[in-house]
């Protein structure tokens, strides 16, 4: 089954976290600047590569395991530190071991979200990184 790791996570998050709506404050893209309809409180999901495929039979051309890496970045306004931390943790817990069609497992790579500090606008940034395990 063809997969679209970052797009699939956006679909799953939109369906499972009430505060997030795809293409409103939840995007399968790199970070977008706040303004012009993009809110400060927003989540950006981006595929970031991952290790090479592993064949079930070494050197074989049959089925293989893949581990797609995806970063989820949460951003919030300067006065929303606590809200952004809560959202980042909610995203982590929602996606870790999530059951998503086309994937055998979703695994978070860190125990807690990474707090990156503030961007140039004073917005708070958090990231969590996930691996999506699937077969092709």
């Amino acid at each position, binding site marked *: 089954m063809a997969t679209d790791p970052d797009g699939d996570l956006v679909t799953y998050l939109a369906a499972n976290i009430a505060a997030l709506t795809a293409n409103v404050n939840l995007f399968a893209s*790199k970070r977008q600047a706040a303004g012009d309809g993009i809110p400060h409180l927003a989540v950006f999901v981006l595929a970031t590569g991952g290790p090479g495929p592993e064949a079930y039979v070494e050197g074989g051309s049959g089925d293989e395991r893949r581990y797609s890496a995806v970063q989820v970045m949460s951003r919030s306004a300067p006065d929303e530190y606590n809200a952004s931390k809560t959202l980042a943790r909610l995203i982590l817990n929602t996606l870790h071991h999530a059951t998503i069609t086309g994937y055998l497992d979703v695994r978070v790579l860190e125990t807690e979200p990474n707090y990156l500090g503030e961007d140039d606008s004073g917005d708070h940034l958090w990231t969590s990184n996930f691996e999506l395990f699937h077969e092709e």
Partner: protein
Amino acid sequence: MSVTGDKEILQNLKRAGVGIVDALGAALMKEGYAVWAEGAKRTPVDGGILIRSWYVAPPTGARNPEVELGVGTKYALPVHEVLDAFHPVGGPRFISSVVDERRAGYVKRISDWAWDFFRRGVGVATIPKLAPEKPSSESEGV
């Protein structure tokens, strides 16, 4: 049952005092140095000390050795994680991209190195005394 070369192995072990756990620790350090060598090429350089703060710490754990590698600056995390920042040299994911690329065949590679080191009596003690260690917390604010 006999094992060809077992006397030689035992002699080597006796001489060097190297066990398989020690050899495994040395193999993990070799992998760590390989990550460092490639990761340094990808580390952003913009007047700070990030690229000079790389470390591969000697193995810890008497029975299950672990080797930690990384960079020892507080600002390393956003540099590594913010994907849309422009860097004149290097870029984000300068550690994880290397680790990802080296994950294929990792177990066999480490195993082969460990057995080779074990047979030749190479252990952690052969690591140069000047090998960088994990920076102390006092130096992380640099």
